[in-house]
């Protein structure tokens, strides 16, 4: 019951945010230099007078601003994101076709980075002042400072070009006609490099945060209580320190969801992973702004879904929230 109410309130909030993004998109087009119709059509379409006329009519570009806004908003509300002139397909179809690949990539990277980050962070916290702890933190700092796209490129050079262990591009072997388990295995092989490179940066963040959070939790009074009971150090670390330290990590993971989607744009570009990030890069190159704004809207929606999930997880993990809500 509590969760149902919570989800409804979060969904309502999500709708408001998405609505604001639509309005934001609309004004972005207005603010851009040049004719909005030309912008919506994209550079390539701008020469086609007939298409421009259609666009002008459809969005009411010759009408006053508020009429245009209304048409734009009601259009998006009906899931009409317009037409990609360049690809001759509705924007929505393009995005929906690419969405599963992005979900697979970001989902894998999200879980991978969280699990590895928390493990590495708790190891580092338990080994403060020891060389092994310092090495973990140094590695985390380096991964944190490395540009994502560059790691991706270097991984291609090393693992695909030089060692030839893993495929460098795409999501599956084209033309192999694989099915069932063999296909899944093939996709898995293609997934390793992009998911790992995407996860590295976030893993670094979680490692640093877990360690800091655990060291802070270790200072708390209840840890002294646990020691006074005669509990083993490993039990105290896991049951008392780590559990309390995880709460801020969950919050952080929610905040990082947006970054993760951003990172996917870069990774997908490098590995030609057929997701919406790669689609965004293609839209950029073709100056297909209508498509670009559609993807932008969807990536925000994706982040909101991630946020709702982390919010629910947080509520499961912290009994005090139930009282407050």
């Amino acid at each position, binding site marked *: 019951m509590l969760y149902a109410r919570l989800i409804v309130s979060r969904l309502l909030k999500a709708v408001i945010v998405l609505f604001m993004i639509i309005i934001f998109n609309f004004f*972005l087009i207005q603010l851009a230099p040049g004719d909005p119709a030309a912008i919506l059509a994209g550079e390539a379409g701008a020469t086609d007078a007939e298409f421009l006329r259609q666009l002008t009519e459809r969005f009411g570009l010759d009408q006053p601003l508020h009429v245009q806004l209304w048409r734009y908003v009601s259009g998006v509300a009906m899931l009409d994101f317009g037409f990609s002139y360049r690809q001759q397909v509705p924007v929505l179809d393009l995005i929906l076709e690419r969405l599963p690949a992005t979900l697979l990539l970001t989902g894998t990277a999200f879980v991978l980075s969280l699990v590895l980050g928390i493990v590495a962070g708790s190891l580092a916290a338990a080994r403060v002042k020891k060389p092994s702890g310092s090495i973990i933190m140094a590695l985390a700092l380096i991964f944190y*400072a*490395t540009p994502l796209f560059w790691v991706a490129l*270097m991984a291609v050079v090393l693992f695909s*070009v030089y060692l030839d262990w893993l495929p460098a591009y795409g999501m599956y072997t084209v033309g192999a006609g694989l099915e069932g388990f063999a296909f899944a295995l093939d996709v898995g092989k293609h997934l390793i490099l992009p998911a790992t490179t995407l996860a590295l940066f976030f893993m670094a963040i979680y490692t640093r945060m877990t360690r*800091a959070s655990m060291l802070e939790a270790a200072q708390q009074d209840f840890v002294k209580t646990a020691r006074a009971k005669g509990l083993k150090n490993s039990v105290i670390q896991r049951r008392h320190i780590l559990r309390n330290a995880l709460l801020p990590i969950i919050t952080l993971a929610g905040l990082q969801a947006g*970054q993760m989607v951003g990172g996917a*744009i870069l990774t997908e570009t490098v590995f030609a992973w057929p997701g919406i990030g790669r689609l965004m890069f293609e839209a950029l190159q073709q100056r297909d702004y209508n498509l670009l704004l559609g993807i932008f809207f969807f990536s925000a929606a994706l982040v909101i879904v991630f946020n709702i999930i982390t919010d629910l997880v947080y509520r499961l993990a912290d009994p005090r929230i139930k009282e407050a809500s």
Partner: protein
Amino acid sequence: MSFFARFAQNRGALVGLIILVGIILMAILAPLLFPESPWRMVQRPFLPPLQTDGFPLGTDTMGRNVAAGLMHGAWVSLLIGLVSTTVALAIGVPLGAIAGYYGGLVDDALMRFTEFFQTIPNFALAIVLVAIMQPSITSIVLAIALVSWPPVARLVRAEFMSLRHREYVEAARLVGQTNTTIILRQILPNTLSPIIVLASLMVATAILLESALSFLGLGDPNVMSWGYMIGAARTVIRQAWWLSFFPGVAILLTVLALNLVGEGLDDALNPKLARERS
């Protein structure tokens, strides 16, 4: 202990500072050592590193001097990092201060606004902004500032909220100091150290963002930047890995140095925390 002595106790911070000074020197010396435009084609393309005099890092796909590009790129990275952070602070500090100090409805409204910006995927927003405003130093700086102010606002708000009911602030209210005086003289000075630390990390993040934008082809077409160099060499990575490698190392070192310096500042400004952490 003096501020610098505390800073220097963190050996990583010292290393970071040295690297950073080196990169600043690169930026300053670039126009002296390579007075020509880094865009000029000066040699055969695809010269590997360390094989031709005057081209220690070789030439790129168009026969441009990689070393010259690297040094000129330092200037662009640092400039964009600093300016966009300054703009982000100029947005985030006042917003956070007002929200945290006044609380209530003002806080609610400002925080909803901040949350909105935090929900939108950062990098995607930057891409859309730069693409539609057309790539230029100004649009890149604006876009980076627009996506990086929310953490500042949240930090400043949290600091203000915890300090606004501190007894010395209440005492200042009771003796009749105005809200402006209290914000500027009583609270703000006590929030400076976390802001400074955050700012140093933000410069690092801004440099990463700029390089990622340039990598995607959204850099200012008039200036040479590290991200652009990697992006341009991406398609020839199989033939000439070094074209991507060196600019990447430059970014890595700069960002690493800034993070190390940030940690050092944190230790030096909050000596108590540093002792507990080590």
